[in-house]
């Protein structure tokens, strides 16, 4: 009897979100485990070295290897240096899933009537999830991209894909050289109390999308009736969204033992299972045929007695 394949996410995030589960992909079980390092790059490097050659794939969480915006790819210096601590085991950051699977999820949500053309979507960051941002716009949703707001607290929503691309060309070549902790909540910041300064944009939106840590960081007191499309959520996160009135929670990765994992870990699981990496031409087929499903939860009646759609 062969041992189950194993993938581990080394996350710069909080250790309080650590978890382990088993996922079935293409008829075979893969062990998936998330291990936080509370924002310590040194500990992340040590852990990657420890796992190298011991597991089938490593996911890098809380940081991307690169930001891909349209045809442009901006390598993130610190992440590339981290990944270099593994010489035998492949290291992925979730972009393969973001490129292949998440646009398909958006298409499905439109087909199922959960999302509709003409709705406004507040997306935490388009530069971090460009394929999803593009899919929303293609589906006819009106975008408010929060890259400058959520990462730098500048009250300026980006309102088109063209402006995302323009700003990325101007900002990302420099910002990807800065310490990542300046740009993204890591460690204990992920558990901080939400800051509702951008509440009016949440109110304007029908759909809240993108990285959950960013959404949580600025979550206002009420998000009644809104659809949330995100990834990494724990049972406590689901309870938080429900208590604030969200109608539907869609996670682009499946819920396992009460929580969903980041795209980096699910991509690592797929790499562990199939031995293929994005952009291998067969990767997309394997992903779509793997049985991977988004998790769609109707959170139902909110605390004020209002019914979701």
């Amino acid at each position, binding site marked *: 009897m062969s041992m189950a394949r194993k993938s581990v996410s080394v996350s710069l995030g909080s250790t309080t979100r650590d978890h382990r589960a088993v996922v079935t992909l293409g008829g075979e079980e893969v062990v998936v485990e998330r291990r936080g390092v509370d924002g310590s790059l040194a500990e992340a490097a040590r852990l990657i070295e420890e796992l190298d050659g011991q597991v089938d794939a490593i996911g890098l969480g809380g940081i991307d290897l690169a930001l891909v915006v349209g045809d442009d790819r901006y390598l993130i210096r610190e992440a590339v240096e981290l990944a270099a601590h593994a010489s035998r085991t492949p290291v992925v950051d979730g972009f393969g899933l973001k490129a292949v699977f998440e646009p398909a999820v958006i298409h499905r949500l439109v087909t199922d009537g959960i999302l509709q053309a003409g709705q406004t979507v507040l997306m935490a960051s388009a530069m971090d999830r460009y394929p999803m941002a593009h899919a929303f716009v293609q589906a006819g949703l009106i975008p408010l991209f929060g890259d400058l707001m959520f990462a730098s607290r*500048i009250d300026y929503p980006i309102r088109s894909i063209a402006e995302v691309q323009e700003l990325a060309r101007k900002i990302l070549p420099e910002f990807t050289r*800065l310490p990542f902790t300046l740009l993204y909540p890591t460690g204990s910041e992920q558990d901080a109390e939400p800051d509702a300064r951008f509440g009016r944009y949440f109110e304007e939106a029908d759909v809240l999308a993108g990285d959950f840590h960013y959404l949580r960081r600025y979550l206002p007191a009420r998000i009644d009736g809104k659809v949330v499309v995100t990834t990494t959520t724990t049972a406590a996160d689901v309870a938080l969204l429900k208590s604030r009135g969200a109608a539907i929670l869609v996670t682009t990765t499946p819920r396992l033992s009460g929580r969903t994992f980041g795209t980096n870990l699910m991509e690592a699981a797929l790499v562990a299972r199939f031995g293929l990496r994005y952009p291998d031409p067969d990767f997309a087929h394997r992903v779509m045929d793997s049985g991977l499903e988004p998790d769609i939860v109707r959170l139902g009646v909110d605390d004020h007695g209002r019914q979701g759609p």
Partner: protein
Amino acid sequence: MADRDLRAALRDFASRCNDNERLRQMNRDWTRTIAVRPSEDEPVFLRYEAGEVAVTDLADPDLVVEGPNEILCAIFTGETTPTEPYMDGTLLVRGSQDDMMRLDIISLLIWGE
């Protein structure tokens, strides 16, 4: 002499900011005084208010940007970005991380690409 060159650079920087509609909108609620302090000279102040920026003689800054005059002039005229001198310690920035990031973004939106 050093002060005069930096003041001219900052006036040009302020003018570019004020001519940029997007920057005016982004900074409409950002009220800050920034001291740009050459290592060997007195600081020059930038004052952001209601989306506009001007070179002023105000003191009591919210953000202090300190470094060799040559580096400061290069940053505020777009000849170099702040990242490299900041990362190698030539440029010191004291103030909130948010303000520092915003100033960086402002310069990249003027001269980036």
